[in-house]
């Protein structure tokens, strides 16, 4: 019957006892939970992978603007050619005939003629 039931004060005594005697995790349970935590923990290397990709730096952006590394190679070739043309001082860089069939004489052994002449005279 309701009038025989515990009132709120009586129930609160049970609740207080329940709170005071709350179950406490054993060391073994805490160890198992910690083991799970470590097994599930993201390693620093994985964190690096998970991070958003870094923004391209100045060099990467500059290379990309000229068509990537292939473009850079072409630019380097053109630059080297320009330097060489300027160095040899060609009046007309488009005179390919002059470049391909140069009328140059190369003396591989300077003074060889006088050496031969001297030998013949002996």
């Amino acid at each position, binding site marked *: 019957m309701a009038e*025989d*039931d*515990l*009132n*709120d*004060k*009586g*129930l*609160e*005594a*049970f*609740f*207080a*006892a*329940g*709170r*005071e*005697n*709350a*179950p*406490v*995790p*054993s060391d073994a*349970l*805490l160890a*198992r*939970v*910690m083991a*799970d*935590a*470590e097994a*599930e*923990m*993201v*390693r*620093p290397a*994985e*964190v690096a992978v*998970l991070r958003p990709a870094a923004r391209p730096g100045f060099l990467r952006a500059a290379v990309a603007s000229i068509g990537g590394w292939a473009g850079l190679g072409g630019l380097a070739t053109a630059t080297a050619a320009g330097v060489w043309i300027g160095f040899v001082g060609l009046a007309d860089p488009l005179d390919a005939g002059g470049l391909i069939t140069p009328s140059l004489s190369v003396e591989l052994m300077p003074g060889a003629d006088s050496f031969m002449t001297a030998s013949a005279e002996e």
Partner: protein
Amino acid sequence: MALDERDGWSDDDLLALYARGDPVAARRLTHRFTPLALRVAQRMLADAAEAEDVAQEAMLRLWRMAPGWQPGQAKVTTWLYRVVANLCTDRLRRRRTVPLDAAPEPEDGDPGVAARMIAADRAAALEQALAALPERQRQAVILRHLEGLANPEIAEVMEVGVEAVESLVARGKRGLAAALSGRRDELGFDDG
């Protein structure tokens, strides 16, 4: 020690640190939340071994959700209470019957038992009475009167309205009062 320096750290902060691989945060979270999970599980299931399994499983889910946790969106404790409650519900549905003999009986047969009644005996009697309540009433009473949650938070945990929580708690308390009233003398009450 670093652990002590983190006493004032929020749950959100610790979860974020754990998600970045901080083992000290893992330890702090373990000690902060495992007792909560175990308390609720044991009171819901009235079985120490099953309660430990539930607590460990709930904590495992905490570790796995940490990287995706949105700080400030919800309380970690509310999330954990809900996970524990759901895990307990799953187990209760599987076994269908509650082992009423799981909780130790208060001392009996001793003429001086009322005078020597200690809080542990009352707690054991309460655990038995809780185990006899319908599951939802039991959950509401545990969260309200043993865990000290406010009704709106209980409503969030149980995914019901606040009025439903009030009703569940009230009916649960009536059930407990009826179950325990027969043991008033035994447990040293004179009902003032």
